[in-house]
């Protein structure tokens, strides 16, 4: 029975109260542990299609007569278009249409970052479109860019008012401390670099706009495009069959969708607008750089008495202020806390969400500072964390729906114990060590999401939900849930996703929320179908219905099909739903050349019930690899005078290669969250990337005594930290 409820909805740390239509989530959770299907390793149901090249990504969508668009972008970090003449481009060979500022959302004349879209051209071929772009007659008034985040804060150039957190009495807490660590950490700007660049193909079928797009939110694109083009939403059909990665950068339609839609309208032809790899490096969004200044106090037994932080996010021209302070506010039980977070508005490309935005950056600072505190107090870093474990939400008594961080610490112990043996393998030039870091993140998902399931007399089922599988394996997870509920093999479940015309609403794929949001709806739909089948079977077989197999029961259907529907129920009220974990890294540092090699990372994560252990470990591996890139080699570099982006290719912007991947050991706690939905599952997309940088940096300290203070830990940062440590020990020796 559908009803309207008022509930808290959280997306990546932003909470709001909303009214949502839900069905009762009256199903009992399955007992913990592996079931017939759920909880057992399952290869992706679309793996072969992907490997064989049969999967249709947006990049594979081609229609007869389709045109290709290219976007004119600002080559300057801050500039005004003084004059623009598109006529020479329109006259070029193959060109079918041009649009300029004001013709489509996001095209403008006031350019606040390099790559800001101004105009677009479409032509028979991409080559012709790009050649025509060069013919556009444009005069720029180049303005002085603002690039320095501290200067922006000083000048009041902010994305939003400063955000503060305060609990207890920070100053008193600091006065009570036996040891205080003051440390500043910096993190760099990194890029998502999805394998599939940002792109859309738009075509008009009568008065319906079809948008084929690489997106993390089919329904968000539908709504935003409808709003922007003043169309009823049901006149916008959004399709995303397969998706080549987004990592947070594809939550919104983007200028490429609006450009394709408008040029398709004007030309009457389908239009593709796809970013090139160079545009992807400039104009597709990024994880913002941060500066984090911590002041942390503790008693000699390690009990935290004060947590203080000032955070500056170098947001760029647009975006939001991610919770860099999140880990400090949420991870440890400390009564006294004070933080201020600034979002600097700069003439740099916008911040877009990137796999645990804020928490990846903030965990590096917090967990490194905590290890510096452990060193100062001569305490075991793992023990220090245990002593400050938060049993309920810090600063209050709001309970967690479930929390198994202590169990994570226990499971991490054997990996942590390896440090003696690892250190012993050091040589004169190569020092080895082990470090750890904790992780907190959201990941509970929430309503609304809906699913339908169709079951035929052949005992095969089709799950229909207009979610998107952004490459995380959600399609496989929901097939497993449906198979488990219906008692049929997972191979007999087909999953149809990614089409707003064909299926019901499903969540944005962000905040590790797709599986915990959609899978409970799928289970509810399967249970609804099962109930209907049982009722019908009782009409046919009476009291003997239970003696017949599902296939036999379904046999009475003939050509009819059962349609089950389900929705995601509400999250538990008055409870905080979070994911937790810990990672232990082993590194080797060449102290003469500054080379850092990550040799092993053990990841222990608590995300409730694990639906597909194989898919979950794959997510852990992906998160760790992306984290290793963030920690060691990736950095978007900018010319300090002009604000031009300098790293625009995959050889200049250095993502990790397979040779950079350490041994990865995944352990999942796999205890269902009894308060959360009919499954007790949380998401695992983001947690694994969060502690990587801090665990590596802490392992470096363990190996060398050097305090790394900036990401990426390039050779120069490593050699700087080593020289500083050497100087410190020389001074200490002199003092003695």
């Amino acid at each position, binding site marked *: 029975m559908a009803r309207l409820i008022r509930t808290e909805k959280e997306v990546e740390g932003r909470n709001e109260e909303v009214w949502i239509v839900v069905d009762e989530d009256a199903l009992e959770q399955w007992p913990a542990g592996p079931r017939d299907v759920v909880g057992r390793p399952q290869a992706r149901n679309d793996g072969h299609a992907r490997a064989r090249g049969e999967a249709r990504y947006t990049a594979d969508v081609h229609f007869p007569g389709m045109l290709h668009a290219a976007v004119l972008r600002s080559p300057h970090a801050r500039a005004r278009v003084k004059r623009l003449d598109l006529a020479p481009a329109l006259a070029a060979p193959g060109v079918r249409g041009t649009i300029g500022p004001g013709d489509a959302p996001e095209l403008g004349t006031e350019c606040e970052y390099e790559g800001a879209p101004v105009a677009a051209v479409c032509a028979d071929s991409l080559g012709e479109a790009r050649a025509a772009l060069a013919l556009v007659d444009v005069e720029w008034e180049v303005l002085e860019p603002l690039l320095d985040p501290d200067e922006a804060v000083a000048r009041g150039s902010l994305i939003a008012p400063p955000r503060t957190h305060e609990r207890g009495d920070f100053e008193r807490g600091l006065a009570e401390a036996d040891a205080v660590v003051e440390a500043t950490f910096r993190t760099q700007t990194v890029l998502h670099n999805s394998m599939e660049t940002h792109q859309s193909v738009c075509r008009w079928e009568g008065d319906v706009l079809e948008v084929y797009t690489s997106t993390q939110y089919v329904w968000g694109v539908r709504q935003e495009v409808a709003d922007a083009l003043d169309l009823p939403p049901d006149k916008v059909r959004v399709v995303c069959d397969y998706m080549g990665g987004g990592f947070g950068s594809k939550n919104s339609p983007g200028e490429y969708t609006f450009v394709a839609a408008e040029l398709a309208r004007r030309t009457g032809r389908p239009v593709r607008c796809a970013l090139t790899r160079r545009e992807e490096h400039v104009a597709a969004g990024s994880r913002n750089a941060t500066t984090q200044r911590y002041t942390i106090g503790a008693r000699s037994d390690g009990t935290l008495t004060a947590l203080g932080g000032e955070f500056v996010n170098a947001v760029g021209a647009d975006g939001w202020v991610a919770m860099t302070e999140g880990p400090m506010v949420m991870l440890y039980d400390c009564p006294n806390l004070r933080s201020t977070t600034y979002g600097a508005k700069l003439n740099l490309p916008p911040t877009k969400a990137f796999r645990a935005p804020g928490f990846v950056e903030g965990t590096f600072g917090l967990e490194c500072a905590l290890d510096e505190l452990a060193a100062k107090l001569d305490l075991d870093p793992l023990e220090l964390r245990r002593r400050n474990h938060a049993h309920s939400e810090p600063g209050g008594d709001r309970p967690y729906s479930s929390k198994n961080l202590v169990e994570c610490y226990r499971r991490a112990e054997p990996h942590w114990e390896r440090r003696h043996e690892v250190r012993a393998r050091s040589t004169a030039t190569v020092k080895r060590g082990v470090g750890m870091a904790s992780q907190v993140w959201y990941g509970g998902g929430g309503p609304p999401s809906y699913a339908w399931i169709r079951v035929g007399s052949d005992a095969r089922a089709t799950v229909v939900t207009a979610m998107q599988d952004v490459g995380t394996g959600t399609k496989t997870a929901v097939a497993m849930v449906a198979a488990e509920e219906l008692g049929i093999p997972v191979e007999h479940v087909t999953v149809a996703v990614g089409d707003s015309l064909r299926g019901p609403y499903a969540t944005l794929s962000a905040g590790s929320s797709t599986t915990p949001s959609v899978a409970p709806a799928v289970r509810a739909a399967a249970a609804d179908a099962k109930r209907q089948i049982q009722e019908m079977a009782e009409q046919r077989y009476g009291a003997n219905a239970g003696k017949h197999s599902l296939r036999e029961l379904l046999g009475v259907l003939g050509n009819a099909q059962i349609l089950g529907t389900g929705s995601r129920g509400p999250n538990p009220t008055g409870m905080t739903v979070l994911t937790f974990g810990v990672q232990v890294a082993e590194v080797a540092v060449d102290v*003469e*050349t*500054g*080379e850092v*090699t990550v040799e092993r990372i053990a990841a222990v994560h608590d995300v409730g019930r694990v639906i597909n252990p194989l898919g979950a470990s794959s997510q852990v591996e992906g998160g760790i690899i992306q984290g290793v890139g963030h920690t*060691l*080699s990736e950095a978007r*570099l*900018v*010319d*300090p*005078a002009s604000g*031009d982006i*300098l*790293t*625009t*290719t995959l*050889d*200049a912007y*250095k993502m*990790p*290669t397979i*040779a*950079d991947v350490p041994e990865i050991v995944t352990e999942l706690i796999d205890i269902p969250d009894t308060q959360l939905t009919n499954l007790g599952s949380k998401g695992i997309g983001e947690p694994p990337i969060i502690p990587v940088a801090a665990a590596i940096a802490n392992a470096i300290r363990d190996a060398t005594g050097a305090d790394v203070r900036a990401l990426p830990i*390039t*050779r*120069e940062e490593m*050699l*700087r930290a080593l020289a500083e440590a050497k100087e410190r020990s020389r001074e200490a020796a002199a003092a003695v």
Partner: protein
Amino acid sequence: MKLLQLSSLRDLDGALPIAGGTEVVPLLRQGLLEADTLADITALVPRGIEGSRIGAGATLAELEVDPQVPAALREACRLAASPQLRNMGTIGGNLLQATRCWYWRLAYPCRLHGGDRCHARDGEHREHAIFANDFCASAHPSDIAAALVALGATLSTTRRELPVRELYRLPSPDDRRTTTLERGEVILELDVPPVDASVYLKAMDRRRWAFPIVGVAAARRGVETTFALAGVAPVPWLLAGSLDDATPLAGTAYKAQIAKALVERARAAVA
């Protein structure tokens, strides 16, 4: 743009020679190289490896596994680029690759492009030079060139024979080129004389598929050891004096430190 299949290198006639294309194609696409006509020289340039002689058309992938090739050159090939690029890229083309300086690659009006300033010197230059960097701070990216310079290799072109070292020249106000190769001149063959021991050590930002932060090649004949460095100057750098003579920029001092360590390791490795 046309692609010609020539029967003789004498027919080049202003066409741009192309072999593996791993450097030429990206430069053409970026507009850093202009040509109306390309000439596929793959069939016209020797590509075999026989004793000390190496055809300029030999791919890096062929060189990295050939036991006739001195260790420094094999290692330089193995540590260069990615397997896909090494399967396509030839040793002749590798010697002629342009700097990875982002300002040059983004077509800034820098000195190498004929302009009047080096943007890297005041700008972002962590990948740049520590020697001969006053006029232009770009770093030469070829691992292979450093190995060949250390090994004392010579090369023959369609017009002359010369030490590999003399293929390169530092850019100057009146001539911004970094090689002495003339238009229409094609490298045909290399001669890599035997050495008693050689090695190539490379520091990079990730473990594979990165240009050198610093590459150090060392080759020993008797008691004489020659060192040549990649990634430290606008050309492959024969280390004549001491690394203390380096003139690093604010952001490249770390390279001098790494170079010192690698030179000592290379010295020990060939001893």
